């Protein structure tokens, strides 16, 4: 039932364009954070879900993107958009390097290695107070001088569409085929002529550059950047978003991110319970619904509507 996908896409497009006019500033902010998280979750899903590389260092690239943008804009006096671009490039380069260093690692070893990388980076940021502002963070200039968050909203919407659209193109291309082949069976992929080394590094670089993009947006939007972005709790949140959405579906990861973000905010009055909830959600999904909650749900709905439509058509024919 492809038509339902298209219908949903149209509704979402209209909703997305009109969203700032429909809600108050608070929920607009939540949506902006949700869409930014969606870039992080979808790029992690590309790396872990499609390419099979379970990195727990994804937030390090968010930090690299954010801090590069912030430091170039403040200390080096570069225009902010250029700094943001540099942040994306820096995280792509670091991502490629990390992808190259852990070529021979897989499974838990790769997870430990990337987690260690992330922790080392976080510790360096906390410690080098003169450069980074340490745990207190670094103040970042604003990108727009407007009364509302509207410009940020449309910017992140554009970035989300471009980055997720780009990833979907990659996934649909031969590269995506190679990523999945390597994930399924590295040995067989090599026997099939796939240059395993090259595509593992490419997957890492793409995912990292988009994590960096999210970081580069985050810094000026929030206005203050702290080493907490690279914390393991943030990593856990992103993993939960991707898994709830369905790790092997990019739109699923996007939907998962926005849904979890809204849930987290809706439960804000319950204080700390909301954080427990996403931990529990992650565990529940892994234990009982390994393909995620949102993607299979959508597929089932699509199937039901499809059946209903077929029945209607039959009845009409009778």
């Amino acid at each position, binding site marked *: 039932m492809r038509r339902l996908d298209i219908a949903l896409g149209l509704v979402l497009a209209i909703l997305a364009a009109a969203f700032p006019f429909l809600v108050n500033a608070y929920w607009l902010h939540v949506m902006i954070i949700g869409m930014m998280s969606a870039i992080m979750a979808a790029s992690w899903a590309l790396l872990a879900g499609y390419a099979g590389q379970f990195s727990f260092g994804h937030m390090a690239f968010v930090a690299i993107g954010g801090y590069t943008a912030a430091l170039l804009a403040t200390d080096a006096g570069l225009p902010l958009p250029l700094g943001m671009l540099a942040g994306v490039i820096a995280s792509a380069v670091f991502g490629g390097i990390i992808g190259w260093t852990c070529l021979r690692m897989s499974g838990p070893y790769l997870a430990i290695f990337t987690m260690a990388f992330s922790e080392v980076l976080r510790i360096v940021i906390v410690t080098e107070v003169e450069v980074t502002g340490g745990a207190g963070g670094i103040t970042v200039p604003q990108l727009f001088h407007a009364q509302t968050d509207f410009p940020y909203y449309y910017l992140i919407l554009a970035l989300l569409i471009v980055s997720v659209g780009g990833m979907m193109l990659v996934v649909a291309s*031969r590269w995506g085929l190679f990523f999945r082949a390597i994930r399924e069976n590295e*040995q*067989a992929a090599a*026997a*099939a002529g796939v240059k*395993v080394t090259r595509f593992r590094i490419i997957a890492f670089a793409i995912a990292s550059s988009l994590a960096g993009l999210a970081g580069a947006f985050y810094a000026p939007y929030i206005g203050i950047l702290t080493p907490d972005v690279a914390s393991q709790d943030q990593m856990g949140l992103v993993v939960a978003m991707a898994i709830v959405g369905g790790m092997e579906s990019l739109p699923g990861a996007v939907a998962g991110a926005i849904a979890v973000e809204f849930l987290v905010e809706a439960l804000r009055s319950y204080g700390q319970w909301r954080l427990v909830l996403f931990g529990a959600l992650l565990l529940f999904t892994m234990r009982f619904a390994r393909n995620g909650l949102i993607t299979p749900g959508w597929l089932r709905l699509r199937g039901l509507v499809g059946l209903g439509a077929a029945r209607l058509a039959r009845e009409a024919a009778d």
Partner: protein
Amino acid sequence: MNDASPLIEAAGLAKHFGGIFAVDHLDLAVREGELVGLIGPNGSGKTTTINLMTGHLRIDGGAVRVRGHSVGGLPASGFAGLGVGRTFQITQLFGRMSVLENMLVPGLARPRAHKAHVIREARRHLEFLGLAALENLAAKNLSGGQQKLLELGRALMLEPRILFLDEPFAGVNPYLRDEIIRFVQTLHAEGRTFVIVDHDLDAIQRLVHRLVVMSRGRKIADGPLAAVRENQDVIRAYSGA
């Protein structure tokens, strides 16, 4: 390129695991158009030989040459690029990818591959192997026999000059066995070269012209079928004495 040199050749090939030679200075040359059977008792180094001659294991000594050019140090994908295809003892598919996608991977990995052309080719091979109706099924949902055929099909997508088949008959039913024999014969008639490792000596005897026998990492016999059958060393190696 030298037409007089063998299609693929192992010269003094050696591999040891912890001091024990799994392949012990093996010489094996396969010429264009040959159909070679490689047999031997368990642990005689047959699969290791395939792994070495397709780039899946690093060689410890000697050389592998494709058409006279030494290709030591090339990764497995490089061998595939040179037209050296293989199947695995335990079928290695991309389990959660569709049958067609499994076929597309090697096709699209070839330089300058044209997608529409690759899809056409994949469908032609699937038709040949009798898998055409299953192209949208996930590979892991195929039966074991169908998986074997798909793996063969995937190797064909490399447009290989030579195919190494590692135990293509293990565990397949007699009907499928005959079918695989027929496929190999057809492909051989089309000009492809084969090296087949298997324990099923009936099938091997029906297929091959030349039989190589390994025991404890060494080649103990190599020649026409009839000659090898008379070889007492081979009988002795198999009776465990």
